């Protein structure tokens, strides 16, 4: 159970359908043969019940949820058994019909599943009949958490909604009715809603409904309201008239444009702009110069909105006139940007001239607006040509930006210009051209990318590499294969990076060949790439590459790649045979790398090969085989390690083998019986406290009485007491609920009495209760 995971605010909000909110919340378990219930009063019809169910473990539980007519349970209304309930899941009971408002009772019982489940209960401030029930007995100071509602929404009655707007209704009732009328209201609701506009606390909710409702009567009511309202409610109504684009309101809004209340005048200006008729535009154009900057700004925004509306309607000439007026040098910078953008776009293809002007002029904001337009609007080869022609006359900085913009226009007619720009000129422009060609997509620019790859300037080369990385995968594979044969090492390295970035296993033969490249850097990169890309069938190539690798970084890379490729082998035994067969090739360092790959594979056949190397004449290889053995993944190496740990001459070797053995015993991936056997075998040869702790760590992951028996003696020694207690707790936790609970209880008693930390003692006592069935 994770109480914090319950979304309390959400739940409480839904509960408000029938219950007040609450502060104290606890989880109440549903025990076997128990019934937990809740009486409730629905204030409206409902067809669905939701109950939130906590659980006490990660496993899933079940219960049966039933709705009754009352706590007396005379008539069952709906019931359903739920299984597989996760912690805090809301179980939903659909009743199958709409139950009328009134008092009801629901109950959960018949717990099932592997875990304890229950309900959340809130404490109540006062006693009530709508309370929780435990086995049919009311607990008047608590209620269980639940919600009711309807899944299939019925269409509400408009007369009832209008009635909810009566003067003596609460604000909440009125607000709720307004929300519904926004969806369903018709002309009959307008008078009641219009009256509500005068109420400062509910004016917005009245508009919430009216703004959404179609019809001339709504507009008429809103216009009428502007004659009697002031302040914020008037601003709201004006805003709504603007949203509704009520052309009939223009005379009134034009008058309000001269209001002494700046907030009203500003609202009127924006509304007129949204309406966007000739009359409203004229009103805005004739607006008096306002002392209030907010009104002036609103008039400009209104005119901009009008211009945008005209442009959208195809009335370009009128739009251009407005945009040109708004982009006057005296206008605020943000407005100049917007109007300049509009002025360019409204002119269509002819706007290219204005576009280029902005790029050539000194104002950075307006140049930014031009670049913005060039990348989104005004498509067409003519505009592209005009922009391309402008390039030579620009500063380097502007050229960089325009080159990028040209790439993003996607007009291929500019490709030759961009390709030429990659070859000469300022570095920043060349880089921008490479990126622009990449933005355009397609492989036509590959030769330019390849040329740039070999450029002596690192930034150019890097940009070319990034550009190649954007090619479609098949195309990139072709390019990479070709580049692997390029004369310069940088191109060959770039090809390897590309193969890795786009993951191209089919290039493995080429990469294996590159492992013999004359350049050391290329060799190392190629060998590393084999580890990433080699598929199971490629293992012989990787082995060949390793055997041929010179000692040093190449062999290190080859060894790592061989291990990685071996781990991915689809047929491990075949891979072992191949690796074992290669043990006769190469020098000692190569054989050591192969041994490590055999260790990655694991299994009896690989172990046999490692044993052979262990017994071999080469001391260095034998030592490496021993280290591989100490890290072996499977239990089949346990006898080898036990023998070394018992009989080796060198103490360090004995210790290393023992630790390998204990590491194996702690490996949860291995079967428990094998791990227990290893612990049993290792116990007598463990000598140091550090090793005893390792042994106890392994035992703690097991769950048998014998593991307990092996751990208990270590409880006596102060140096291992805590670790022994932890191990015993771990074992006992697995035994406490089963047939060996007596053994677990006896061990836990000893832990509790052993003088361990208070926390461990408390855990032991808690488990003891469970083991004893308390």
């Amino acid at each position, binding site marked *: 159970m994770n109480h914090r995971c319950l*979304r*309390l*605010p*959400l739940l*409480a*909000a*839904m*509960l408000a359908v029938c219950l007040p*909110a609450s502060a104290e919340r606890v989880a109440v378990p549903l025990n076997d043969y128990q019934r937990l219930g809740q009486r409730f009063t629905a204030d409206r019809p409902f067809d*669905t019940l*939701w109950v939130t169910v906590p659980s006490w473990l990660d496993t899933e539980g079940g219960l049966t949820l039933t709705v009754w007519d009352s706590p007396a349970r005379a008539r069952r209304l709906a019931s359903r058994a739920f299984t597989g309930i996760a912690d805090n899941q809301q179980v*939903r009971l659909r009743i199958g019909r709409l139950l009328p408002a009134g008092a009801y009772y629901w109950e959960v019982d018949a717990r099932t599943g592997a875990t304890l489940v229950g309900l959340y209960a809130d404490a109540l401030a006062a006693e009530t009949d709508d309370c929780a029930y435990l086995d049919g007995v009311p607990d008047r100071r608590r209620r269980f958490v639940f*919600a009711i*509602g309807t899944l299939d*929404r019925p269409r509400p009655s408009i007369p009832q909604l209008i009635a909810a707007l009566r003067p003596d209704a609460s604000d909440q009732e009125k607000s709720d009715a307004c929300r519904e009328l*926004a*969806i*369903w209201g018709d002309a009959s609701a307008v008078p009641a809603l219009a009256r509500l506009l005068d109420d400062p*606390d509910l004016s*917005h909710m009245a*508009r*919430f409904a*009216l*703004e*959404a409702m179609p019809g001339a009567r709504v507009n008429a009511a809103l216009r009428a309201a502007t004659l009697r309202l002031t302040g914020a409610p008037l*601003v*709201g109504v004006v*805003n*709504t008239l603007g*949203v509704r684009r009520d052309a009939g309101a223009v005379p009134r809004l034009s008058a309000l444009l001269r209001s002494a209340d700046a907030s009203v005048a500003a*609202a009127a200006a*924006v509304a007129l702009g949204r309406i966007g008729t000739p009359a409203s535009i004229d009103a805005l154009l004739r607006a008096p110069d306002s002392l209030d900057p907010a009104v002036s700004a609103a008039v400009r925004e209104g005119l901009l909105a009008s211009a*945008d509306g005209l442009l959208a309607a195809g009335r370009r000439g009128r739009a251009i006139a407005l945009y040109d007026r708004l982009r006057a040098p005296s206008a605020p*910078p943000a407005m100049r*940007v*917007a109007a300049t*953008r509009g002025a360019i776009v409204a002119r269509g293809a002819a706007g290219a001239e204005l576009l280029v002007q902005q790029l050539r002029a000194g104002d*950075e*904001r307006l140049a*930014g*607006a031009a*670049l*913005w337009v060039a990348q989104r609007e005004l498509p067409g080869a003519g505009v592209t040509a005009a922009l391309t022609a402008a390039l030579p006359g620009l500063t*380097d*900085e502007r050229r*960089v*930006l325009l080159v*990028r*913009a040209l790439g*993003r226009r996607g007009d291929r007619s500019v490709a030759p210009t961009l390709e030429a720009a990659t070859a000469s000129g*300022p570095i*920043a422009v060349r880089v921008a051209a490479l*990126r622009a060609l990449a933005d355009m997509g397609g492989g036509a620019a590959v030769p330019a990318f390849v040329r740039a790859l070999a450029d002596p300037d690192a*930034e150019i080369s890097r*940009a070319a590499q*990034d550009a190649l990385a954007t090619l479609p*995968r098949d195309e990139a594979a072709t390019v990479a294969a070709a580049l692997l044969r390029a004369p310069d090492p940088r191109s060959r390295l770039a090809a390897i990076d590309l193969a890795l970035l*786009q993951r191209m*296993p089919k290039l493995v033969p080429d990469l294996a060949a590159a492992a013999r490249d004359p350049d050391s850097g290329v060799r190392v990169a190629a060998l590393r790439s084999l580890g*990433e890309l080699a598929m199971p069938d490629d293992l012989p190539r990787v082995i060949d590459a390793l055997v041929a690798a010179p000692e040093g970084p190449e062999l290190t890379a080859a060894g790592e790649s061989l291990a990685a490729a071996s781990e991915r082998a689809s047929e491990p035994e075949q891979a072992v045979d191949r690796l074992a067969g290669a043990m006769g090739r190469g020098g000692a360092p190569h054989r050591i790398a192969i041994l490590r790959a055999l260790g990655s594979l694991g299994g009896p056949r690989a172990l046999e090969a490692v044993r052979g190397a262990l017994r071999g004449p080469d001391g260095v290889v034998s030592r490496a085989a021993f280290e591989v053995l100490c890290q072996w993944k499977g239990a089949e190496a346990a006898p080898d390690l036990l023998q070394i740990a018992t009989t080796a001459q060198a103490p360090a070797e004995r210790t290393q083998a023992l630790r390998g053995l204990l590491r194996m015993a702690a490996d949860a991936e291995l079967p428990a019986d094998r791990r227990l056997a290893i612990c049993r075998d290792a116990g007598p040869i463990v000598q140091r406290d550090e090793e005893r702790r390792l042994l106890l760590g392994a035992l703690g992951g097991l769950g048998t009485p014998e593991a307990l028996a092996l751990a208990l003696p270590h409880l006596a020694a102060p140096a291992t007491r805590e670790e022994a207690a932890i191990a015993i707790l771990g074992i006992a936790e697995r035994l406490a609920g089963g047939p060996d609970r007596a053994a677990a209880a006896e061990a836990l008693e000893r832990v509790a009495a052993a003088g361990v930390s208070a926390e461990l003692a408390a855990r032991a006592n808690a488990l003891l209760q469970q083991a004893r069935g308390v």
Partner: protein
Amino acid sequence: MSASAGSRGTGVSRRDFVARAVGAGAAVAAPWIVPARARGAVPPSERITAGVIGVGIMGRGILGYYLSEPAIRIIAVCEVDRVRRDAAMQSVQAAYGATSGCTAYNDYREMLARPDLDAVLIVTPDHWHALQAVHAAQAGKDVYCEKPISLTIAEGRRIVEAVRSHGCVFQTGTQYRSAPTIRRVCDFVRRGGLGKVRHAFCLWSRVEGGYIPVSHPLPAEPVPDGLDWNLWVGPAPWRPYNHRFHRNPMTEVVPWAFNDDFGAASVTWHNSHCADVIQYALGVEESGPVEIIHPSSGRYPTLTFRYAHGPLLHLVDDWGALKRQYGVVPEDARLEGSFGGVFVGERGWVTSMHARIEGHPPSIFDEMGLRNRGVPGPNNHHANWLECIRTRGRTSTGEEIGHRSASLGHLAHTAFRLGRTLSWDPATETFARDDAANRLRSRAMREPWRL
């Protein structure tokens, strides 16, 4: 609604910067370059100046990221809760030093009035997103806006209009699509790697048993000292303060999203991310479905979107529904994670959730160029925003994309609310022959606010 005390920064205008910065390779770093390559290469005088609006649980994360981003300078922090605002300012000072040049604001409109501010990061509750984005655009600022960018379809459309009209660079906070692995999966599906996509699936979380946010009243509580509750509610219907709107119930969970006036529940929690990547993969990221099929129709067991070119997008309570109700994936499919979705096509199926990528046939992983099935590592979402601010380019998740992914959620809410199947014209953004549904496309704002 006055600005709190603090010195006004002397930040350098990005417009001035554009002219100088383009000479540096880092300043025009391509979107696919990992941000780390560019980090640290931007001189202080050439940084983009930005302000953060909202420093609740998400805003603190965004602020923390950008405080360590050399290409940007945070010169303003706006928050209506003084406690959070002060904490954010302390973070700024810890990152920049005592003379950080960052000013704290209670009212975002005062912050937007600063001429030296290039861009804003909007990380407020959902009911503020559209208004603040439009106001920022009108003030000439570039915008990053958390998802969902709107609470209604009309709000989203208004953002698109304002951003275009004012020539802004806008990015939606659906970073998930910028994860390289997710991009590869989506590109694969988009290019037809699965053949024709027949079905897509994504999760839709419930709110107390229902599928839409709730709007029931909560008891009034005293407004905490330092919280400007009137400004917090802003354009939404008035509600008295209750801590459940404002206090985070747990780590990484925003408090207000359950409420219909302030949030969009499942859309806020994760569905915006799902909608974004699914519509991208289906090639409809700037459009939308043509039908929203309610389960009451009996055609599909869960709410389903139908797109004009054929695919169906099903909303499911849990991933088990793909086996239990639709039978489109094998029993041993793990289907882990909430972001993203599952695609089922002619050739097989593939997931795009954040826990791991699964799919069939196995060869698709090689075709997608995926090294493994994890969804690891950083993404370039923020780097893309900065790059586009400098070059005035389109961001990876621009205004139309953000609007359409939010709209998908609003369409689902409308169908759930009305309990019926709806026909939708994504070109005109109207429902066919359904007055009630069309009315739910917008909401009146509380005075004096307007879009």
